[in-house]
């Protein structure tokens, strides 16, 4: 048993920390700290800085221009980024499509797309969910019919995160409606500029725009944009899922959120004393701090296992469930610590230069409501329980 990092890992941690201190622009970390939406320009700037250092593709092997890091190194990097209030990278091209192309892509697809993911020339979004296919993803209906040297795509995708900024979309489409649902799905790369594609925004609970509906009407997609074999898309989707599962616990963000809650609770007052000395509120903080300290170790245990076995196992579903519940609880506590100071719509109070609550808190209610999504997306927490039922309990 050894819970701390090795000497090499500590040196690496120091290197990352120093680089971030030197490189991460303060206007970016300030924006992250404030907690509002990040603009595409900010994300492009950050991606470019990471790419210049060679640290953008942390899940890629070296031969494709990635870092080749171990799961532990990747964890250290993410921990340090979080600590410095660096943005999370947009994962669709780098963390999701990249590994799929390494394993299933043709030489041409790899040569064309991988460099453009790295240099930011092509921004990607993910076309998975449909109005009728959420948790039951395999029931998706968007149809792709092969006609000569191209596919004709008709249907609708939804919950397409950052689709409004994307140049391309990778999609699961139905290529054979006659067979078992999982066996008639293919994985297609589609240029968003193709005629017949329409992107409509979905306004979220807090008023923000990060997800979209994408409509496909007779969209012609060259056949060479098929990844892997026709009707084998489900295998790719499952492979992608295991890659989606790195840093699923969100330990760093929760640690940050815990510190923010404590700071708020020291500032705000109730019954003539700091809120943090109110036993009811303090007990709520303590309960979530305990769960978070436990999850730090659960996360490291699973990283250790992933490092031994090469890939994260099904028990990472535990991290998804716990990680989201802890983070949501912290966002709830932050909102409750502020009371009515969390209620104004961000940006609505424009006169008098009024400040509501302590600095950097105006987005607290928005963040609380927005983060209800975390236990729903990426396989809802109920789906995670189904996965654990099958894999860990074998029921």
């Amino acid at each position, binding site marked *: *048993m*050894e*819970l*701390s*990092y*090795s000497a090499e*890992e500590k040196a690496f941690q120091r290197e990352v920390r120093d680089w971030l201190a030197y490189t991460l622009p303060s206007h970016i970390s300030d924006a992250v700290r404030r907690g509002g939406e990040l603009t595409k320009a900010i994300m492009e700037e950050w991606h470019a800085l990471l790419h210049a250092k060679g640290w953008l593709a942390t899940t890629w092997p070296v031969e494709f221009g990635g870092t080749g890091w171990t799961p*532990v190194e990747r964890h250290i990097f993410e921990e340090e980024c979080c600590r410095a209030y660096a943005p999370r990278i947009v994962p669709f091209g780098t963390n999701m499509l990249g590994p799929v192309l390494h394993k299933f892509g043709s030489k041409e697809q790899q040569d064309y797309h991988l460099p453009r993911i790295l240099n930011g020339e092509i921004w990607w979004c993910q076309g998975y969910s449909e109005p009728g296919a959420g948790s039951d993803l395999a029931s998706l209906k968007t149809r792709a019919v092969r006609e000569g040297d191209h596919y004709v795509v008709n249907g609708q995708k939804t919950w397409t995160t950052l689709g409004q900024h994307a140049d391309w979309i990778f999609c699961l489409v139905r290529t054979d409606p006659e067979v078992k649902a999982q066996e008639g799905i293919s994985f297609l790369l589609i240029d968003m500029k193709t005629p017949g594609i329409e992107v409509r925004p979905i306004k979220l609970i807090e008023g923000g725009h990060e997800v979209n509906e994408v409509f496909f009407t007779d969209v012609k997609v060259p056949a060479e944009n098929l990844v892997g074999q026709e009707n084998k898309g489900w295998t790719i989707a499952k492979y992608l899922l295991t890659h989606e599962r790195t840093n699923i616990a969100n330990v760093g963000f929760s640690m940050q959120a815990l510190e923010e809650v*404590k700071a708020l*609770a*020291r500032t705000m007052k109730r019954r003539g004393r700091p809120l*943090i*000395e109110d*036993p009811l509120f*303090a*007990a709520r*903080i*303590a*309960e979530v*701090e*305990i*769960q978070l*300290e*436990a*999850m*730090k*170790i*659960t996360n*490291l*245990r699973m*990283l*250790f*296992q992933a490092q031994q076995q090469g890939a994260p196992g099904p*028990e990472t579903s*535990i991290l998804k*469930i*716990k990680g989201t519940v802890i983070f949501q609880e912290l966002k709830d506590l932050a909102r409750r610590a502020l009371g009515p100071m969390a209620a104004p719509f961000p940006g609505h109070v424009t006169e008098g230069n009024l400040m509501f609550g302590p600095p950097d808190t105006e987005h607290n209610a928005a963040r609380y409501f927005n983060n209800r999504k975390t236990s729903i997306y990426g396989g809802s927490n*109920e789906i995670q*329980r*189904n996965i*654990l*039922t099958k894999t*860990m*309990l*074998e*029921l």
Partner: protein
Amino acid sequence: MDFSLTDDRRMLQDSLTRFLADKYGAEHRVKVAYEAPFHDPALWGELTELGALYALAPEAQGGFGGTGFDISVVFEALGRAMCPEPVLGALMASRLLGAAGAEQDALLSGATKYAVAIAEPDAPYDLGSIGVTAKGDGEAITLSGRKTAIYGGQVAEIFLVVALMNGKPAVFEVRADQAQVVGYGLMDGGGAAELLLDDTPAALLLADAGAVIESAVNAGIVALAAEAVGLMSVAHEMTVDYLRQRKQFGVTIGKFQALQHRAVDMLTEIEQSRSLVIKAAAELDGPEASRFCAMVKALVGRAGRLVAEEAIQMHGGIGVTWEYPLAHYAKRITLLDAQLGDTDHHLGTLIDGYKAA
């Protein structure tokens, strides 16, 4: 970073687990745990011959272990078997004797059984509310007052008693044959004792010992939390097994999602508990020991009640019968919370830390 056990600890774990599975099956355990002397003296002998107690003390004090991880390996194995032997008292006494630089061969060999007396009837967890006081000095010290819920006290030959001397907590040795000891059995198996002190002769072991006592309590907490993980794991395994076998409405009840998700939630809390046991064990001899011990004890108290209650509920009627071992696991898991501070007590400790910040 490495979460595997060293070879030595794996051997210790294997030999203990094998011994307990062979000799301490659930049926035997239930037979001995509820009848005086509330443990099995013959198996205590075999357990100690196996070196279980030596694993709890460092080499410098005659043992071959003594770290948090040695403690957690031993107690998780004891937990899996619901073992009622008085090992916790030996562990905590060993920490106190070690701090005093006292000889502990008789303790580690199992020849002399020790129990540690901290709790008092009106203050079971609170080191700040000790009422038993010492009188006199040198060879002529006596103690008066009552110590309560001394686990393993029903068979202890020597009590290490926490009492006030000059207003500060100190540790004294009291011989069982020189004091009034009232032993009894516990609802969850095993035994305890009340120690009634009335100018009872005592020998000073440690003066002004607040920090040392806290450290012994922390070791006890790591032990209990590891025991809880062992107990909870078995209760969960039994429950999942039952879900696979029991049929109603023509299917095994494990096919019902209402039960599946709850069985997963049990697993999640057990894994979280296991993680904090590892952390608390790693920090046991460090500056943050008390903080992490408070956390893990609060967590296993919560998780334990969830696991015990859900295990019973999912077993249905059979879960509340004496005949079926699960009931005894559930009782032990639940009442373990009342040893060395329950969930609320330790949450309070953490909250006090927030005030200082």
